[in-house]
């Protein structure tokens, strides 16, 4: 059953397929990492975005190359949705010299300056003020660019989140705050951590237009993000999207959520976990946006790209020990 409401305003086929390519790429990359992780060659903690892919895609599809994206430890989806280099990412997971951070960062610290992804922080909430700062820089230099800050529900417990929103509002900064609320912080359910006030309301407390979005529904993310970004781009100041998502795996690594003891009992049933990729595929096929054989071809190409990226990573050289102290200063 297709759970996506068909939008009134037709979106170009080109954009719809672009979104699929990004979405499918992220899904397949994360699954491939999960599959190969036990080979113990990716010696870095991985926080997979499985289940949460639609948020990154639905937001980043609206962004120009110059628009900044700031992200966190669960950054693969944001990185790839923004157009980050796949080979460089994979090489970084293998901690190779050819990695996007030359093996100095690992999975939690991806970067691709060419698409205005200036690095991710693995301190929860740490990158939120960075996004505000980049937005400030854009305003300062009168540049037509904005910043998006991706973070999770636990980040909304950090004081810096509130400080950042307050200042962004005061200065009318071009920043979009996107909270991916998957209700878990490692094993800790949100009800154990926060008063049950919708996270979107925190934005409203600062008079920042805020909404809660079904983050498992790509078309809904697309539409709300478009609205939000239009607002931000028009110079009216920040916007806040709380996107409800489901984290398919453990905080780090793999794991079958149906067998995770920390999950709420009412979640442990077949059909609980929704699939944004499958749903979107259904949307495309029911809307006849693409022929099944063309979709298949697209998938084959993407999977081939992923295989090539793994190959590239495996064959790449490791950093040299003599270079241990390099890059301490710029």
């Amino acid at each position, binding site marked *: 059953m297709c759970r996506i409401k068909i939008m009134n305003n037709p979106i170009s086929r080109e954009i719809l397929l672009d979104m699929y390519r990004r979405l499918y790429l992220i899904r397949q990359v994360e699954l491939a990492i999960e599959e190969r992780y036990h080979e113990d060659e990716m010696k870095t903690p991985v926080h997979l975005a499985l289940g949460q892919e639609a948020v990154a895609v639905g937001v980043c599809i609206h962004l120009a190359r110059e628009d*900044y994206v*700031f992200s966190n430890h669960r950054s693969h989806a944001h990185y790839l949705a923004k157009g980050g280099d796949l080979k460089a990412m994979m090489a970084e997971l293998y901690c190779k010299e050819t990695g996007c*951070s*030359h093996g*100095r*960062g690992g999975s939690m*610290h991806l*970067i691709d*300056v060419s698409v205005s992804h*200036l*690095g991710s*922080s693995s*301190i929860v909430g*740490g990158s*939120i*003020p*960075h*996004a*505000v*700062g*980049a*937005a*400030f*820089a*854009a305003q*300062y*230099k009168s540049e037509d660019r904005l*910043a998006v800050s991706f973070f999770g529900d636990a980040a909304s417990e950090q*004081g*810096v989140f509130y*400080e*950042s929103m*307050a*200042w962004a509002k*005061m200065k009318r900064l071009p920043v979009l705050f996107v909270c991916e609320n998957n209700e878990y912080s490692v094993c800790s359910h949100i009800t154990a951590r926060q008063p049950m006030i919708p996270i979107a309301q925190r934005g409203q407390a600062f008079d920042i237009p805020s909404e809660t979005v079904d983050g498992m529904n790509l078309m809904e993310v697309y539409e709300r993000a478009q609205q939000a970004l239009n607002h931000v781009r028009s110079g009216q100041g920040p916007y806040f999207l709380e996107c409800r998502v489901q984290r398919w795996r453990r905080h780090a690594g793999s794991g079958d959520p149906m067998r995770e003891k920390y999950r709420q009992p009412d979640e442990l049933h077949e059909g609980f976990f929704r699939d944004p990729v499958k749903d979107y595929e259904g949307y495309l096929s029911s809307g006849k946006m693409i022929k099944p054989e063309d979709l298949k071809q697209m998938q084959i190409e993407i999977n081939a790209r992923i295989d090539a990226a793994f190959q590239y990573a495996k064959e790449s050289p490791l950093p040299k020990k003599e270079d241990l102290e*390099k*890059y*301490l*200063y*710029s």
Partner: protein
Amino acid sequence: MPWTKLQIEREEPAFDENEGQNVRKLSYGEALREALDQALERDPRVYAMGQGVDDPGGMFGSTLDLHKKYGSGRVFDTPLSEEAMIGMAIGSAMAGLRPVSIHNRPDFLMMAMDQIVNEAAKWSYMFAGQVPIPLVIRACIGRGWGSASQHSQALQGLFVHVPGLKVVMPSTAYDAKGLLISSIADNNPVMFFEQRWLYKHKSYVPEHVYAVPFGEAVVKRPGKDVTILGVSHMVIEALRAADELAAKGIQAEVIDARTLIPFDEQTLLSSLAKTGRLIVADLAWKTGGFAAEVLAKVAEKGFDSLKKPPVRVAFPDIPTPASFVLEEAFYPGVPDIVRAVEGLMNG
């Protein structure tokens, strides 16, 4: 706090590095202001932010009226949100600006330790130098008038320990301007610590833009009998102590470290090779501070020069008390340095 200013007027003797010379002089506070003014003028990417940078006091004069000259887009007040403000400065630096984040006291930087230590200090290394963070964080170490333990801390030791940060502590007006210029020009996060009692001291300060390099200590006063390495205000105390010691026939060589990271070991070791005796006069608690690091370096590389064990003159390892009687007992100064030197000279 005007009371602190009055106390400083009373208790801190005037210090003019170029006493008797008919040259252009500025006070330490004026020199800081001139550095920032000239940086703002020359480089549109530079901006200054901080609580009260645009108020009538102008951060003890060091930012006075700069907001009028450059506008509130470039010199502006900030909320009491140190973590977000320094994080914002970091993000703006990533995006090409050159922020100067000004704080009344180093104590308040504790609110922003994640951004300073986990973020700014790491960004160059973590991302292999692709995104520099040209950020300057200025803070003024407090002292006196019952400021007490949360307004008197000298916390540079914490930052000296974190790779990726540079730590700068000028003791004179000349160095204040030159080192602030260098700090703003540096592409790395720089912790720039001043001291409240230095603000009125004067030096020759050229009007043109000049940079004092990092990693170069300076011999303020040559001597053959003992090396006194000073930090910040303790350099001035060491110079005063050297005067007293000279009257007693002891020639102390006073070195100003100027930058703690990077630190100029060579100047110190050369001096030690000559004198064989070392006092480190540190503006900080004794345990685990910069002075301890200096002693470690000396033990490693200057051991054979030592005629006597080295001595640290520093704050006692306690929070700073409010009562003026206890304050006086707390702060080391000229008598402690003189006593320490005499201890090294005897026997």
